[in-house]
Each structure stands twice: as structure tokens, then as C-alpha cells.
């Protein structure tokens, strides 16, 4: 089937490994994609050394947004927050293994925006975080 719906994306969409909430958590943030109303919340637990020990996402949205959130959670566990802050658009595209047009790119990058806004302690997940 076509690239956009590679098996890995459908698989992560239908059977995510990191869907849920963490309570208590050290960092939690949620925001919407105003374009389509997709919603993502991300909860993190971070140890005293600043390493992400647990990560979960919750929310609703299309296969691209939900699969990229799941892949993103998988990738940041065990990583220092300083490294999480450096993640960018290309890292997400590499994880998904696809190329996306400008509209669907927003779906794919929603979880990274929410994650970085949470880690930086910002009030809003703005586009500039992933550019």
C-alpha cells in the first residue's frame, strides 16, 4: 500500500504502546491542532539526573498524529531532557519514514510541539518549536 499508510503507522495507531496518563508526573502538557481539532496530552516522569524514565500520551486524532506520538514516546524514554529539547521536524519524519505535505506535517508534529512546550514549561505549543 501507499507510503503514507506504512504498516508501522497503522500498527502504532491501532495498538499504541504508550497511550495513557501518568499520575503522578513531573511534566504534563496538552494542546490541540487547531486545523482539525486533534488533541494530544503528554505526561513524563523524569529522574533527578534529568533523564526521562517514563512517557505516555493521550488524546485523539488521525493515524499520523497518533502514530507519531507513540513513536515519539518510545524514542525519548531513557533520554536526557536536554536531548529532548533538540528534537526537530526531521527526527519525526525519520521515525515515520515518510514524507508529508504541509497539512499533514502539522498532524505529525503535534506531539513534538506538545512535548517541547511541556519540557520548556511554555504556555502554548507553538509552531516555532518544531521549525
Amino acid at each position, binding site marked *: *500500500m*501507499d507510503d*503514507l*499508510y506504512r504498516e508501522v503507522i*497503522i500498527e502504532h495507531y*491501532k495498538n499504541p504502546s504508550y497511550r495513557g496518563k501518568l499520575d503522578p508526573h513531573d511534566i504534563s502538557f496538552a494542546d490541540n491542532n487547531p*486545523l*482539525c*481539532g*486533534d*488533541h494530544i496530552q503528554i505526561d513524563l516522569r523524569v529522574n533527578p539526573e534529568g533523564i526521562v524514565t517514563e512517557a505516555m500520551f493521550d488524546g*485523539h*486524532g*488521525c*493515524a*499520523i498524529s497518533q502514530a507519531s506520538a507513540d513513536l515519539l514516546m518510545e524514542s525519548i524514554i531513557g533520554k536526557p531532557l536536554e536531548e529532548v529539547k533538540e528534537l526537530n521536524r526531521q527526527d519525526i519524519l525519520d521515525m515515520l519514514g515518510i514524507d508529508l505535505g504541509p497539512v*499533514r506535517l502539522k*498532524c505529525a508534529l503535534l506531539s513534538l510541539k506538545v512535548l517541547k512546550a511541556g519540557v520548556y514549561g511554555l504556555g502554548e505549543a507553538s509552531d516555532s518549536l518544531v521549525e
Partner: protein
Amino acid sequence: MPRTLTPFMSINVDQIRKDFPILERETANGRRVIYLDSTATSHKPLEVIDAMNDYYRRSNANIHRGVHTLAEEATALYENARERIARFINAASFREVVYTRNTTESINLVAYSWARANLKSGDLVILTEMEHHSNLVPWHMLQMERGIELEFIPVTDEGLLDLDAYKSLLGRNPKLVSFTHMSNVLGTINPAAEIIHLAHSAGALTLVDGAQSVPHLSVDVQALDADFYAFSAHKMCGPTGIGVLYGKSALLEGMPPFLGGGDMIKEVKLRSFRANTLPHKFEAGTPAIAEAVGFGAAVDYLTKVGMDDIAAHEHGITEYALERLEEVPGVKVFGPPAEKKGGVTAFTLAGVHPHDVAQILDQDGIAVRAGHHCAQPLHEKFGIPATSRASFYLYSTKEEVDLLIKGLYKVKEIFG
């Protein structure tokens, strides 16, 4: 007004399709475009494209003040289009047809000019739960600025306006009732004449969002007795960048100007100005002249095909599409049955986000829209973040509906 429906296929759709060159193009993977997104914007027939091209090739000039040949010609074309548009909606005079950028700007014109001159804190404006954001946000802004009150006619589960609830809201002395003639999501055709009559009996004025109705139904603003009526060219075979605010002349006369600048004035002194006559009073600055010319060509085209025949054709397609969609397991269609709606079908497919539905359909050249279609509160009402929407126009065919259904089965296969 009840719609009279002539038999299905009242127009020669094969012939119509030849008028729209874009329908012949292919998508990236070599598929013919199956365009089911006319509610967002319609395609343009050759007559419209040619009229605009000819204008730039032959008549381009700024309007209204030039005395040279080109300026005279451009002015005549611009004003002549207005007269044809006025006839198309049966306005009493061309002076009641104000050019704007689009429906959104038309509604904003009423909110800025009429409402700011006439509404004070506590005054009630009645809207509906099925409004497009363009008929919500201008009133939210006025609410923040002025402290006006907003109430909403509820939408029933079937996707119709609850007229009993409306009647009781009218008991609260509203100043304005502003509502959509046809929902861009549910397709519901609201009983505009009745809503307007009831509003007038309660002493309120009315503003109708006609973005979806004027392209698809025969609209007579005098028969409706609408005070204001807003619509866009680009959804009715015309270009983007131009729309109309129709207003009864007595109302427009009494309103302060909207934007200030050239063309909207009769006289300017260093410290004062006198506003121009209607409709120019509301048209500041060099307008979209080529677009007005294209708009005129669009109403000529629609008139030639026949609005009643277009409505009947779309009704047939919609009836067929609803029937076929019902067959697909997991599909849920929103909105009333075919006899109460226009050619718009919003639906969800269980377990698949509308964005994914639209994306997979696109791979076969099928263009549908996915999202909240600028009607977020309506989607919230139905408890869903988004829908997919297939919409039809005079060039739509049953074969295209069949391809949509085939595409939906493919989506189901991919998502297992």
C-alpha cells in the same frame, strides 16, 4: 418556500462537464480528479475564466473616475455585473448589492456598521448552533466589545433547527436573527422565509448567510423578505476574492460607512468627508474588478443552466449518495434526509479519523474535505472532533459517488 423537484438528471451533466476544464486534469498518480469538495469552493467554467482573461487583455483600467476609453469600459463591466447579480437574487435595485471580498466580509460589514450603530450592551442577537465560524466570531467580538447577548437556536439530532425553541427565544426581544440558509456540514436547508417572518413579527432584523444556498438554490431576497443576505462568488462558479452583501436600501442608507477611503466618498475636506451614495458608500479602495466581471459571467452561466434544474440534479445525486453511504458498514451520516438538504454529506467511518479517510481517498484522485469545516461548535454538539464531507454540484455524477463508495471500502481494508 417548498422546492419543486423535477426528475433526476434534469441537466446534461456530460455536456456541463465539458465547460469545466479542470475536471479533465489528473492527480499526481495519474488518476482523474473526482472533485467532491464544491462546498469549500466550486470549479469555474470556461465562460468565467474567459471573461476575466478578456477583461485583463482588453479592458483593464481603474474604475469610476477615469474618462478614457478603458476606464469607461472597465466601469461599465464592473457595474453591469452588479446589475446581473442583483437580478440573479431578485434584489429590488443594484444599489442593494454591495461588493465585498466574500460572505465573511459581508457578515463583518453588518457587524461593524449596522450592529455597532444599533446595538448596545444587553441587546440580544440570535444565531444557531449550525453556524459557520464566519457567523459566530464577528458576534463573539461584538459581545466582548459591547456586551451584547447571544442565544442560539438549537439543532435537533436529525440536524434541523428547533423552531419551537426559536419561537420562545423570540419572546426575549431580539434585535437581530442571523442564520445560515443552508448548513455547510449537515446540508440542512433551513426554512428561511419562516425564520425571517417570525423574526420580523418579534421586531428583529435578519441577516442570512447564503454562502451555500445562493450557489445551489433559486434565491429571491424579496420573496424571503431578508434584511441582509450574504454570499460569495467562488462557491457559485465565480472567482475567489469577491462576494456580496445584499441589504434593503432603507437599512443600508441609514448605516454608517464601513471602510474609509477612495470611492466611498462624495466629497472630502481636510477635516471631514461626505459618504457616497449606495452601494459605493461601502466599497472603499480599488475593488476586485476582474473578479466582479467573473462573478457576472458566473451568474449568467448558472442562469443559462437553470437554478431549479441544478437543484434537482444535486437532489438526485444526494439521494443516491445517502443510499450508497448507508450500505457501507461503519459509516454514519450526519444531517437530515435528502428532501430536507442540499448536496452536502458529512460522515464518519468507525475507527478511522476523517483525515485518514480523506488522505486515502486522495490517493485515488477523490477530493473530499476532512475536519470541522469551520463549524467546530456543531461538531462538539454531535460529540465528534471532525467529519469527512463529500459535496456535489452541477457537474457531479453518480459514477463519482460510486468511486467514493469504492474508496471507502479501500479505507476499511487498510485500517482492517
